[in-house]
């Protein structure tokens, strides 16, 4: 038995050494004929990322390439995402489409990919680097401005508003927040009462933060001392919505959000949310993969590709264009797999 162990160990060691020896010869590996593209989201459970996945699958089927969909094991954990990128570089995918969790922390690993001749397309959030082939994303600043103008119009240009931020370091939501603040500044009678609270990564943390934010703002008559609320992404919008509903304030305050989900659509229909700025995640996933494939097939691609945004309101929500954005048909694509 012991001898078997030893023999086994030695044989494994030999295999290991021999393959290490072969490694030098393998470095100029012939490029694979069928492209394999890794798509790395920030997380895998949000509806938003499911839609990006759907778009990527759609592009993969159209262009006859293979995609590997692999998010960080811990949602919103930078280290976890770096590990995933490293592992996919090692498995030598043809290209990486990445939604970076951080504009700086992911930079070294992207450089590493480029050094290993694996091109990178950035989607959704920016990266402070010029190594990427292209940046495919919603113009978040513009989206935030749209939200600000929409809220200001609903309030007739006067009143007090609060904003619950998402999380520091996430470039996309910070741009939305900045866009919102800048656009609201154009209305002299609108006052931003609070804009320094953070909802955090999950709906649960956003719910707690919302309760803490709303608590001191309640008046004795059970209303709110503010007129408008803005939240910059799905988890904060939903957390805030739950907090409003639980304290019976939903619908009594003008509420504008960003992103959509089934529950948010219901809230728009019930008049509890008065506007949602929508990105097009399916298009984002689709264009991300498509841009990468074009690049790999030797075509020129744009450095910056905008995927657009629109405001959904209770009035226009049955419009087919808006409806597609509100309820992305991701299941159609993901089920076909």
């Amino acid at each position, binding site marked *: 038995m012991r001898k078997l162990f030893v023999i086994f160990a030695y044989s494994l060691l030999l295999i290991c050494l021999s393959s290490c020896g072969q490694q030098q010869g393998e470095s100029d590996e012939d490029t694979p004929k069928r492209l394999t593209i890794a798509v790395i989201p920030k997380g895998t459970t949000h509806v938003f990322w499911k839609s990006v996945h759907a778009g990527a699958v759609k592009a993969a089927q159209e262009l006859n390439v293979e995609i590997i969909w692999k998010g960080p094991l811990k949602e919103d954990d930078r280290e976890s995402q770096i*590990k995933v990128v490293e592992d996919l570089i090692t498995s030598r995918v043809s290209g990486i489409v990445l939604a970076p969790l951080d504009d700086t922390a992911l930079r070294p690993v992207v450089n590493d990919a480029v050094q290993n001749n694996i091109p990178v397309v950035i989607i959704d959030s920016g990266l402070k680097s010029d190594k990427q082939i292209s940046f495919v994303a919603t113009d978040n600043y513009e989206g935030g401005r749209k939200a600000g103008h929409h809220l200001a119009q609903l309030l007739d240009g006067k009143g007090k508003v609060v904003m619950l931020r998402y999380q520091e370091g996430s470039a996309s939501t910070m741009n939305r927040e900045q866009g919102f603040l800048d656009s609201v500044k154009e209305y002299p009678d609108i006052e931003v009462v609070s804009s320094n609270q953070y909802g955090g990564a999950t709906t649960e943390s956003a719910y707690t933060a919302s309760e803490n934010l709303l608590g001191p703002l309640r008046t004795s008559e059970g209303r709110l001392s503010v007129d408008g609320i803005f939240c910059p992404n799905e988890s904060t919008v939903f957390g805030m919505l739950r907090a409003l509903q639980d304290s019976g304030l939903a619908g009594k305050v003008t509420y504008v959000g960003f992103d959509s989900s089934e529950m948010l659509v219901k809230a728009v229909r019930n008049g509890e949310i008065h506007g949602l700025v929508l990105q097009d995640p399916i298009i984002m996933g689709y264009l991300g993969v498509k841009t990468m494939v074009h690049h790999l097939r030797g075509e020129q691609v744009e450095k910056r590709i905008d995927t657009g945004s629109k405001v959904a309101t209770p009035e226009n929500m049955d419009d087919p264009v808006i409806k597609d954005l509100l309820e992305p048909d991701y299941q159609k694509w993901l089920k076909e797999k």
Partner: protein
Amino acid sequence: MNTDQLSPRDLTNQKAAIFRNLLTQSGFKLLMALLCIYFFFVFALGLQQVVKTKQANQELLSKLEEEDIPERERLQDSRLEDPWHKGLQASQRFVSSRNLETIARQTTIVGMAALGMTLVIISAGIDLSVGSIVALGTVVIAWLLNKNGFSPLLAAILAVAACGTCGFISGILITNLRVVPFIVTLGMMLFIRGAAKGLSNEQKIDAPDTWLNELLASLGQDQKWMLIPSGVWILIIMAVMVAVLLRYTRLGRHIFAIGSNEQTARLCGVAVVRVKVIIYSLCGVFAGLAGLMQFSRLTVGDPTVAIGLELDVIAAVVIGGGSLAGGEGSILGSLIGALILTVIASGCSQMGLPNWVQEIITGAIIIVAVALDRLRHRRPT
């Protein structure tokens, strides 16, 4: 310390006893487990590639058939690929030096923290604040680097010292308040996480580019003589030092004594309070070094990093033969435990498995590994 006890039969055959000690204590079996898991992924990756390529070929052939291309031309189509060749390539990638280096780099953070955690667990304690200390470490380094007059080395040393102080405070609280380590370090976990967030104004801190970022960076062509990045070397040196400390110094034996039976140790004259404070301080220092490594990978100070890292670290120690009841554990075992966790994660990533599958596999392996370890322990006595 029941691995040290020898049954009478073994004493008659000393050679066998020595060999068994080698098996149980040197982590030989664990090494085998690591290799088995590693080569499982080597074969799985190859096989997966073979199946995938075959499928792609099949699809291509049926498409060509629809286009009425004669069979001979179909089979010579340049887009067809040899599945076994592709499979071999995929397998080779997992045993390539690049992958080994990646695994080593990814293990360093958990491995470094596991050095301290091994000491704590041998002494029958636990430290839940490790993840928060790592985050604090990254924040302190970035914060100091942004101040004038702090060289990278000084910033790193001060950050590790700050982390050591956190461990020291835990140790003082545990021994003086007589509260169980679980509760004290649970409190410290939140306390330190909060401190890290406060220090960084609840945002990540960008830091200037220094040589600290190179500690765990992938080696360039001109640095190949180092074999593995300097951060991994630091881990190895530290591991050897702690292993020697545990085995050959009085402090090391006292740690085992406290873990085996604290009352007896006290009666035998072990300065339990002092040793415990030293243990938790060391755990803080190693968590700080893990924070330094984490900073090197992130290049920013991030107060939200390493949430739940302590659980990975504890899992590594326990897989490596550490007992939460105290008195057992080894440095080599803990490092192998950390390596096993990385290999699973890395293998699953490279196979493109969804995260939920990866989590289920990791959970199952932890339970199986520890269960096997307990079975092994029951046999000799």
